[in-house]
């Protein structure tokens, strides 16, 4: 049988179900890939022995009715995994082994899959290139000089390099969609509240949302179905009936109204991105969708708003890493305050410190109204822009990112230029909406580029359907040479 690991999750599941491959052989194939891909630095922790045990258990007593029968999965190291080290890409959690399993990963395991390893990410999910991780930067399989995007960079890299059949990331401002775009893969940020945040190391609570990263839209539907669901342990979780996204996947999008927001045509955007957007519009139009020009007037305020709200919440969420109860504690420090200072100085990296400082500043007395409060008001306006538009349309099509993958080190000294990478993705998080990044083409260097579909709250099925139809007609194929092995 040909290399099974370059197949889609859906194909792999079919092969397992039809007993063409055992869970054990499948797991071994991924372990072999992972071991030969150390250069990519996609993994922080591997759990091979445990995975092989689970695979064996599955093979001995298979249950093919599950959504993910005997499927090994690597996940972003932001999800707490019981008895497996969870670092969030940070030194401050370098020795942290949770006694609990995040709801999302537990859902995956309950659907028949098991853990293959923990994937590198930007420290506390703060970054757009996976260069802020304490465990080193991750390399994009597309090219040995390229970043895989961030913060779910280990996830996108591992997925594109066939080190896991599918994966999950978290998306606070684009951390699923941008890396998906940079690696020619599919990434979905669900509606805020669709996937439980319980057991996910928090970055910005009102924006964080876990979602699938996959090779195909169908895979994305399978993963979303497996990981989502109401969780009473998360007060912001949405209590609704579970949907069967994969079963209900349809490629007929005739008559759907697709909004094209004029504000997403930004200055200095590479021509290829614009051309790609045009190509996407044409494909959807040819499939019978109707294109409608719309305006989201507050889009230009989304990035500054995001960089107030997210750091503000982060500055508070990260206060618990104080060296008192778990995680890294500096051996120096003669009193409590000094222990805090040393622990946090040594435990956090520069980008995390920068955001804690920004967040602390915008919440400070005398600045709160001018920054945090104003940002919250603007956030409402951004949300209203979307709400207004969605009375007339079914989904919105935009580019996922303003450029393809950039070079390692290219933006590390220029945080603002780094932040600009999220310009098309952050409005969605601020509005709590679902959005899908799907591969659509390549730039002149041959690097993948993605298009983004934004849906109404809880309209995941619709954007998956549009993506499904698009995928079939786009003709994109991710040509990655395994230069690392």
């Amino acid at each position, binding site marked *: 049988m040909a290399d099974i690991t370059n197949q889609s999750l859906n194909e792999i599941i079919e092969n397992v179900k039809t007993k063409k491959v055992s869970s054990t052989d499948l797991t071994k194939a991924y372990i072999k890939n992972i071991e030969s891909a150390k250069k990519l630095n996609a993994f922080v922790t591997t759990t091979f022995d445990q995975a092989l045990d689970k695979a064996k258990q599955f093979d001995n007593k298979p249950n093919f009715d599950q959504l993910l029968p005997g499927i090994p999965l690597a996940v972003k190291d932001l999800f*707490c995994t019981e008895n497996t080290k*969870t670092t*969030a890409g940070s030194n401050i*959690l370098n020795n*942290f082994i*949770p*006694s*609990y399993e*995040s709801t999302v990963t537990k859902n995956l395991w309950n659907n028949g899959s098991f853990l293959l390893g923990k994937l590198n990410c930007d420290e506390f999910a703060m970054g757009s290139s996976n260069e802020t991780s304490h465990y080193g930067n991750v390399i994009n399989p597309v090219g040995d000089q390229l970043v895989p995007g961030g913060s779910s960079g280990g996830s996108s890299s591992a997925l594109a390099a066939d080190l896991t059949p599918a994966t999950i990331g978290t998306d606070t401002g684009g951390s699923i969609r941008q890396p998906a775009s940079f690696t020619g893969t599919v990434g979905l940020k669900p509606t805020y509240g669709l996937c439980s*945040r*319980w*057991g*996910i*190391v*928090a970055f*910005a*609570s*009102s924006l964080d949302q876990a979602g699938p990263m996959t090779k195909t839209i169908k895979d994305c539907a399978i993963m979303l179905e497996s990981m989502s669901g109401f969780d*009473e*342990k*998360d*007060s*912001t979780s949405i209590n609704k009936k579970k949907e069967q996204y994969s079963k209900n996947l349809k490629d007929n999008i005739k008559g759907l109204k697709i909004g094209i927001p004029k504000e997403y045509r930004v200055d200095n955007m590479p021509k290829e991105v614009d051309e790609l957007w045009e190509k996407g519009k044409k494909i959807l139009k040819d499939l019978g969708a109707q294109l409608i020009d719309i305006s989201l007037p507050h889009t230009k305020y989304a990035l500054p708003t995001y960089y107030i709200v997210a750091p*503000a*919440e982060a*500055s*508070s969420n*990260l*206060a*618990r890493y*104080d060296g*008192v*109860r*778990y995680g890294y504690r500096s051996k120096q420090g003669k009193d*409590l*305050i000094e222990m*805090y200072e040393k622990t946090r100085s040594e435990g956090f990296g520069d980008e995390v410190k920068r955001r804690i400082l920004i967040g*602390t500043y915008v*919440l*400070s*007395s005398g600045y*709160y109204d001018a920054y*945090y409060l104003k940002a919250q008001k603007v956030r409402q306006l951004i949300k209203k822009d979307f709400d207004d538009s969605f009375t007339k349309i079914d989904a919105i099509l935009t580019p996922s990112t303003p450029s393809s993958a950039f070079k390692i080190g290219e933006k590390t000294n220029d945080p603002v230029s780094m932040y600009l990478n999220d310009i098309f993705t952050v409005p969605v998080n601020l509005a709590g909406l679902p959005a899908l990044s799907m591969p659509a083409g390549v730039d002149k260097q041959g690097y993948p580029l993605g298009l983004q579909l934004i849906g109404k709250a809880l309209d995941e099925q619709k954007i998956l359907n549009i993506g499904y139809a698009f995928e079939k007609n786009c003709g994109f194929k991710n040509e990655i040479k395994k230069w690392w092995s």
Partner: protein
Amino acid sequence: MSKEKFDYFIKGEKGKYEVVIGLEVHAQVLSKSKLFSGSSTKFGADPNNQVSLIDSAFPGMLPVINEECVKQAVRTGLGLNAKINNYSVFDRKNYFYADLPQGYQISQYKNPIVGEGKVLLDMPYGSKEIGIERLHLEQDAGKSIHDMDPSNTYVDLNRSGIALMEIVSKPDLRSPDEVNAYIKKLRSIMRYLGTCDGNMQEGSLRADVNVSVRKEGDKNFGTRCEIKNVNSIKFMQMAIEYEAARQVELIENGKVIDQETRLFDTKKNETRSMRSKEDAHDYRYFPDPDLLPLKLEQKLIDDLKKTLPELPDKKKERFIKEYGLNAYEANVLVSEKEISDYYEEVAKLSDKKLAATWMMGDLFAMLNDKGLDISKSPISAKHFAELVQSIKSGEISGRIAKEVFEIILETGDNPKKIIESKGLKQQSDPKELEKMINEILTKNKDKVDQYKSGKEKLFGFFVGQVMKSSGGKANPQLTNEILKKLLKG
């Protein structure tokens, strides 16, 4: 009853100063589990045995509001005649401390669950209304233990995350006595409601005390100081007295009072500066993004209102009307729910007025003496009622009643049995009494003569003799009547 006049002023060289006090009372909510986690709230467990992953702020843990705590806050708000807010918000109050695992306390800042209300105090100079500014829900912190080890501090997180109600009064209190009455009233209301056990020893009720002074008659408030975390009424009173005197002295010496946070040192009986306004924490309050705003349906509030028990003010009115008590008696007997329950049980079976007198006299003295709550009274309400009824019917005299009371304490027997078996029944047969008195008068002819010639003081002597020869059982009223009659003849 003539009312006293309010008179609590600090006398300085340059005049009289009025003391202005506002309290922030922290009352632990009576609930099985903590405000945002399922951990037990039981007092006295081994350190760190009632701590969930949420209470200890592990990565990825999220708070989920405990509905019972919300209901308790609403009940308390209703008991304080306060406005219940249908919309309230939980905020994070950010600061670092070893016993604050999250690095922030979840509290309510701009939108508390309960708004303005009022509490009525009965003071010797009349009743006084104290305004309630607000009541909000918040998490308690853990406990730092500094004296277990010379070089380390230990942290116990059992208390971390327990629900507190912070009840903020308006600056309406004017003396340590009013503070005493206010705390007792709050405590009483909450105990009636079952929303806080009010146990100050266990820290279920503590307060931050805001004190300022101003010249008598001044309209503007002076600069206030906040005395943090005082955990007994006595200490609150001592702290207020010290602090008011300190502030008056500063003013009289032409100095300025700094707005600051102070600590009360119970050993030295003084307040000390903890931090000045400039050093005050910037808590960076903002709405907790892990929690949605708390929206209360009016129906829930109305339903809770319907199930509220009768509260002290209402009960007092009823006691006056129904049982013919005076305001003072009613006040004392409603001060604790258990006392009022005991009283009502006794009053059902005996004379209502006499029951009140005897409860407030001998029963309370005994309980006080033994340091017992009325719920632990060695004399049951039923026995006590029998005793009261025996006095009322004339079966025994008051003096004998005291004796019977003591015997019940010792033996636990019922009063009827004691009276019978010990032959303590009062001699109320006029014929027998007259016979006995006649004998006494015959024996003391000289005294009778003296009495008749004007030495009327001797009447007491005759009564004494009657009591002596009857073993105290002679009916006093009857004795008086017969004596008077016979001495006249």
